C-alpha cells in the first residue's frame, strides 16, 4: 500500500487525463446525446500530449505551467440546464470517423459551422453550474485558441463548510486544467461535484468563444 504523490487528479484532470491519454490516433468525442434528440453527437476537439500539432486541440498554457494536453474541446455539451435535459443545441452531427481522424481536419470544417476561432485575447464567463452545494461559474480567457487564464467569476455556496472546501479545491482545479498532465491511468474515482461544475462551466465558456 503506497501513498503516491502523482500530480494529477479530481474530475477535471481525470477528465482531461482520460481524454489526453487516449488521443494518439484515437477519437475523443464530447457531446450531449439526448435520449431522443436524434441530433447525434457533436464532435469535440481532442488535444493530447502527443498531438501538439493537432489543429483543433486547445493547447493549455500558463506561466510556468508547461503546455499540455487538456482536452477542453467544445461541442454541443453546452452546459445549460436545458441542454442537459436532453434538448441539445449541438452544431452538427459529425460522423465518428471524421472525429477519429480529426488531426487532419480543420475544426470549422469538422463542426460543419463557420466558426473559425477568432484571433486575439478574448474572455467569457461560462454558465453558472449548480453542483448540488452551490453555484460555480468560471471565466475563461483565451488567446487565439489557447487558454491563458481561468478565474472563478461566480461562486455561491450556502454552508460555511462547503465554502471552505471550495476555496481549497478551486485553486487546485485551475492548475489541473492548466497543466492537465497525462498519466497512464484510465479513470479517477473519488471525483466530486465541484470539479464537475468547474469542467462544465469552462466547457460552456469555450463554446461561447467558439474555441474548438
Amino acid at each position, binding site marked *: *500500500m*503506497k*501513498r*503516491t*504523490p*502523482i*500530480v*494529477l*487528479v479530481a*474530475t477535471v484532470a*481525470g*477528465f482531461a487525463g*482520460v*481524454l489526453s*491519454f*487516449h488521443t*494518439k*490516433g*484515437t*477519437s*475523443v*468525442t*464530447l*457531446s*450531449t*446525446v439526448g*435520449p*431522443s434528440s436524434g441530433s447525434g*453527437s457533436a464532435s469535440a476537439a481532442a488535444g493530447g500530449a502527443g498531438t501538439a500539432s493537432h489543429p483543433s486541440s486547445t493547447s493549455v498554457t500558463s506561466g510556468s505551467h508547461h503546455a499540455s494536453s487538456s482536452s477542453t474541446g467544445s461541442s454541443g455539451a453546452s*452546459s445549460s440546464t436545458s441542454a*442537459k435535459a*436532453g434538448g441539445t443545441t449541438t452544431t452538427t452531427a459529425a*460522423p*465518428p470517423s471524421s472525429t*477519429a481522424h480529426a488531426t487532419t481536419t480543420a475544426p470549422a470544417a469538422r463542426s460543419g459551422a463557420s466558426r473559425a476561432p477568432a484571433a486575439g485575447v478574448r474572455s467569457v464567463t461560462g454558465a453558472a453550474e449548480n453542483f448540488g452545494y452551490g453555484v460555480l461559474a468560471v471565466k475563461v480567457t483565451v488567446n487565439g485558441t489557447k487558454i491563458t487564464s481561468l478565474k472563478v467569476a461566480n461562486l455561491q455556496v450556502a*454552508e460555511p*463548510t*462547503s465554502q471552505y*472546501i471550495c476555496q*481549497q*479545491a478551486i485553486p*487546485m*482545479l485551475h*492548475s*489541473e486544467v492548466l497543466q492537465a*498532465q497525462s*498519466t*497512464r*491511468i*484510465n*479513470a*479517477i*474515482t*473519488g*471525483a*466530486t*461535484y*465541484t470539479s*464537475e461544475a468547474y469542467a*462544465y462551466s469552462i466547457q460552456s465558456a469555450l463554446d461561447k468563444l467558439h474555441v474548438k
Partner: protein
Amino acid sequence: MSGGLVGHAEVVMGTVVSFVVAPGALGPAPLEAALHEACAELHRIDAVFSTWKPESPISRLRRGEVTLGGLALEGLGDEVAAVLAACEGARAVSGGCFDPWALPGGIDPSGYVKGWAAGRARDRLVDAGVDGVLVNAGGDIATAGGPAPGAHWRVGVRHPWRADALACVVEADGAVATSGSYERGAHLFDPRAGRPSLALASATVVGPDPGLADAYATALAVSGLERTDWLPTTAGYGAYLIGNDGSEVVLGEVAVIDPAATDAGAAPS
C-alpha cells in the same frame, strides 16, 4: 499496442460520465451507435431515478404521490422495484449502514443508482462486441475487459486531502466506487445515527457489481474502520479505506498498483 482507445464524455445524471473503449474489431460506426445507445440509457435512467428532478418517478414516489403499483401501471414498476430490491439487499448485507429508506426527504436509491447506471451503460458496449470498456460516472466506475489484451483498467483513487495526489491506483475488474467526505463536506448520512457521518475520509470498493460497489462504498464510509466485517469479501468485494487519521486499511482482495514500479508513476511532481 496499436489498438487505440476511444473516449467519450456525456453530461448526464448531474455529472460527466466518461467512456473509455477498446473497440477491438468493432468498427467506428457500430461503436458510435453503441455509445449513443449507452448514453441514451443513462439519460433514460436519469429521467426515472433522479431525485433532483421533481417530475421523475422516484421523486413522485418520494413525495408519496405514487406507489410502486402505480408505477407498474406506467410500465416503470419492474425496474424501480428491481433497484429497490437491490438496495434492500445492500441494506441487509451492510447491517443498515447503507439505507436509502432512512435518509431525510424519503427513499433515495442514488447511492446505488449511479454505479448501477454505469454498469448498464457498460453492458451496452459489451453487447456490441467491444474488447474492453470503462464507464466512469463521476467516480463510480464500471469496467469490462481491459485497455489492451491481457491488461487491466487502472483507476486512480483520489487522495482525500491532497487534491493534487492519488492515494493509490487500483486495477478494476467489474466495478470501482469511492465514497468520502472530502471536498463536498459531510454529505454522507448515517442512517443509524440519523445524522451526517464522517467515519472515514475515503472508502473505495472494488468488486463485480457496480451498483453494489457503489452502495458498499457508501456504507463503509458510514460504518467506519471499526465495523467492516460485513463486506462480502467472499463474493469478490474488496475495499481500500482511509481513516480520518490517515490510516489505510485493505479488506479482501484489492489489486493495488505500485506506480513507482510502472510508468503510471511517471508524472512529474
